[in-house]
């Protein structure tokens, strides 16, 4: 077993008047691909934002060993989180500030998700939902941090684009880092993950080898497979 990179011990998170996460404990080795699955409102986004350092546990502990360096963590947000005031290309170049050849790298990243020059010059408001999603993905690919967090990376995409994006996500994984993917529709992700965590109303109901978790009856019922 590889060395542990990330450990959560009894993590609780409150958001407003609700408890978004209840007592989550898990440990993830370096180089793992972790899937976080659960219906809408089950606490997936809260967990990803805790990992990103945007939220802090209300109770319990979250340990990285070692913590990702500055800029060593990227995230695709559920609502895309593209800045309205910048073009798609400038959005992709945002985390590259100060790096050499930032614009060329950003352009290559856009090309990898199938967006050309004309899409890159547009503002987010002029792009379709699927194109915005791909721009957000390109923003993570361009910076290529070892730790990548994907919040619903394929939601709202047509089936052909979804397969394409899944392949891009597969290739983007860094064997010395960590990839975490959250989705309410786990079917396509189970075979592409090593570990899976299933949340229901903030409670972890299953955690373990992805293939095993995928076979569990309660998990299959939760996602309506039975």
């Amino acid at each position, binding site marked *: 077993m590889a060395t542990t990179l990330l450990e959560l011990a009894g993590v609780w998170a*409150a958001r407003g*008047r609700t408890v978004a996460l209840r007592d989550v404990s898990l440990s993830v080795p370096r180089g793992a691909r972790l899937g976080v699955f659960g219906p809408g409102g089950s606490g997936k986004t809260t967990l990803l934002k805790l990992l990103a350092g945007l939220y802090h546990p*209300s109770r319990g502990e979250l340990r990285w060993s070692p913590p990702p360096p500055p800029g060593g963590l990227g995230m695709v947000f559920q*609502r895309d989180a593209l800045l309205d005031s910048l073009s798609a290309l400038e959005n992709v170049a945002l985390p590259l*500030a100060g790096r050499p050849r930032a614009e060329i790298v950003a352009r290559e990243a856009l090309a990898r998700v199938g967006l050309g020059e004309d899409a890159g010059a547009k503002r987010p408001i002029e792009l379709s939902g699927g194109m915005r999603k791909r721009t957000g993905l390109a923003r993570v690919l361009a910076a290529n941090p070892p730790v990548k967090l994907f919040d619903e990376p394929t939601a709202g995409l047509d089936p052909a684009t979804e397969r394409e994006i899944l392949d891009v996500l597969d290739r983007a994984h860094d064997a010395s880092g960590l990839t975490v993917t959250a989705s309410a529709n786990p079917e396509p992700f189970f075979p592409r993950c090593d570990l899976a965590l299933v949340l229901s109303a903030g409670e972890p109901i299953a955690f373990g080898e992805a293939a095993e978790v995928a076979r569990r009856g309660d998990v299959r019922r939760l996602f309506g497979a039975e």
Partner: protein
Amino acid sequence: MTRALDLPDAAPRPRALALAAAAAGALLAGRVDRAELVTQVRELCLRTIPVVLLALAFIGVVFEEHAAHEARRALVSLDQAGPMFFELSVREIAPAIAGIVLAARVGSGIAAEVGWMAQSEQVDALRLFGRDLAAELYAPRIAAGMLASMLAAPLGIAAVGLAGGFWAQAFSGGHLAAFVSLRLVTAHDWALLVAKSAASGFAVPVAALHCGLALGGTPDGVARSTAAGVVRGTLWVLAADVAIGATLWWIP
């Protein structure tokens, strides 16, 4: 059963004072995103000042009507009230009404925009990429708000005086010159004007930014943060007005 109320919120809670301090630090150090500053000056100043002028011109006429009514009742010349009227515009009416318009126009603009940025996770993205929120988000909006406030006050005084004076000359038998007379206006009055305008210019954007960041994350975040931003801004304008008026009361 653990209730949410027993746990601290996982999201960092923005504090208005900390936000104001960070923004003031960035402004004093000159850490202001230039492109964003230009955008905000265009958005906030150009769209606010005409509304301030219109509002104060209306107010000028309203107060001239009151003055004319009282002058008729007391059997004195309306022109005697003119210089007092103008002094009152400098020390009170112009900064207070300009502040309220600022809270409505600048406050709602900033609160709606930042509330939307928080709701659509743009603020999260900026924080994740380690961007300088004080320089890119806070300082340009506060600088533009202060500029709008400092420009609105002198222009607004002119609008009050000219509108009131024209009305007096045209309908009440007074003279325009009496309503723009600086005879009674002292350094004390100018100090009040500058202090009140600077306070509104700073407090309105800070209140709006704070409401946008604090409430933008909720489901109806944009609507809630817009209404709250305007209300808080208005309250801060009036509170600063009272506080500054009461403080300068003691200074001769």
